[in-house]
């Protein structure tokens, strides 16, 4: 069967009833979709199928033959982060990060569809995505910021090379 994954077309060999999650992780070695529950309950495996967020653990390969699949690797690179990725970094919306791949994918679909910064609407869009670390507040803030198109300064939060403390205005006293 054929898939276009992050703009690369591939012929896949897995049997037709293999979950898309296993095709991506085990056959194509694309490891960002996470196997949190493999039963549709946690959202960590979410990918875009023809632009729509789907639980890849519940999606049989044969139902997506020919589809365009996008994982978080396809949304932006460390050098060229998407707006949603920048907002997740800026707002510290990823703690252990295990839910983040699915969250970023679902949030991207929401923002791309013109979603607003309304908290209830964001909750609705992310329903079924579990995060055990952050308490969700930071995630809601990040998605709202991305939806509004906030100007974000991620240099102070994203740097791995420069491990010095960065102070913000007003904190120096």
């Amino acid at each position, binding site marked *: 069967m054929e898939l276009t994954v992050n703009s690369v077309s591939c012929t896949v060999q897995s049997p037709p009833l293999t979950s898309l999650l296993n095709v991506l992780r085990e056959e194509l070695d694309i490891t960002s979709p996470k*196997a949190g529950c493999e039963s549709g309950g946690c959202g960590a495996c979410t990918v875009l199928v023809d632009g729509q967020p789907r639980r890849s653990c519940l999606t049989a390969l044969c139902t997506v033959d020919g589809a365009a699949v996008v994982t978080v*690797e396809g949304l932006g690179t460390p050098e060229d*982060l998407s707006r949603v990725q920048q907002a997740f970094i800026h707002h510290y919306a990823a703690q*252990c*990060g*295990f839910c983040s791949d699915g969250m970023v994918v679902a949030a991207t679909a929401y923002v791309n569809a013109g979603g607003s910064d309304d908290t209830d609407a964001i909750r609705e869009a992310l329903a079924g995505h579990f995060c*055990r670390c952050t308490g969700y507040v930071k995630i809601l803030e990040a998605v709202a910021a991305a939806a509004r198109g906030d100007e974000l300064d991620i240099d102070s939060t*994203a740097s791995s090379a420069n491990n010095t403390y960065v102070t913000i205005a007003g904190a120096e006293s």
Partner: protein
Amino acid sequence: MKVVGARLPRYDGVGHVTGRTTYVDDVRLPGMLHAAALRSPHHHARITHLDTSAAEAMAGVHAVITHADVPLLVYGHLSGGGIPGDEPLLAKDHARYRGQPIALVAADTVDIARAACAAIDVGYEELPALFDVRLAFDDDAPVVNDAFGNWYDQYEGNLDVRQIRKGDIEAAFDAADLIVSGVYRTQSQEQVPLETQVCVAVPEPDGRLTIHTCTQAMYFSLGVVCSHLQLPMSQVKMVGGTVGGGFGGKVDTASDTLTALAAQKTERPVKWRWTREEEMLASGNRGPWHMEIIDAVSRDGWILGRKMLTIHDAGAYGRFSVYGVTKHSFHHTGAYTIPNLHFDGYVVFTNRIPTTAMRGYGITGLSTAIEVHAERVARELGMDPYEFRLKNANRVNDTSPNRIPYEDPSTVEVLQSLASATGSELSDDLRAMTRDQRSADMLPDHLAAQIGSGGGH
């Protein structure tokens, strides 16, 4: 201020949002096998026979590990600290909880490994199981734990109970105007990290093992693995630090040891990732606590003394429970100072999943009990709960149940902030209160004896 309020750089932020962070399940190695476990379907059973030959004969199966393969079968998570071992890495003659691993299969795929587990021939003779800690002491209770019986019995001085004795408890109860008792029971709770237990173990050409681990306690897990495998620590390299959530549930060494053994036996890299069902069914969770509190209180609102009985449900094996109950005992007065104490805490075994750490091990359920009890005492006294709490709040140089003077207790400030955040009126006196040591003229007799004489040690 350099740090508070500053935007600290997150070294892993970019990795987390671009799919670049490598969790244990993301480790890819050529020739890697996949493991699955055969687990006890019974809460308590004698294992009458175990025949793995059909599983071993299946195409794609590379190894079936049973108790006979483990160099040191029985070890305890606190054995390094002198607590005798009680838990077999794989069940041998007895299964003590539902979900206890009996065998591990390493195969070409997870599906083959699972099918092979189903092909293992095990005979069980079901035994009566114990689930309620309150029945553990009965003469006719099923015996749960091989090493200790139904409760841990090897505290210092051969005591079978963690005790705290402080001050003169009988005098406190004689002097009480009011005695308030309550029983508090908290439930067990699974930590539910989004990443289930997972390990990748790799045999290196020089004979060493590399273990990609999701542990929260790297060097501790290194010790557990090396003990069961009887390897010097120089032979094992643990790679960790990227944990997909743990919350205490990854302090136990859940998957590393068996995966390492499978890698040794097959001479191939092996991955063992638990399913969500296994995580819920068989990984260590926060234990239930049974707590009985009896306070001796004076009419003007001082807690003169506390008697407390705690029964902690350890599940089938000790793991860290002895530590948990000890920590619990040190904290059993919570944010308040009570000079006369009589505390007994038992680690009781039941046929449940062994329990472990979760966010405030030994303390979280206890805090619920202490605070609900404080509220009840205040009501019985007809006293404002804030006043009651602030009056008994820990102050500088008060001593903890284990006789450590508090240098920096925050009870007063926390209660004052709580009152202002919830719009509760405090009197001027209470608003002006600080954590500073109580002045001698403020001290009630029972605290004067404790603090005035240098701490009542």
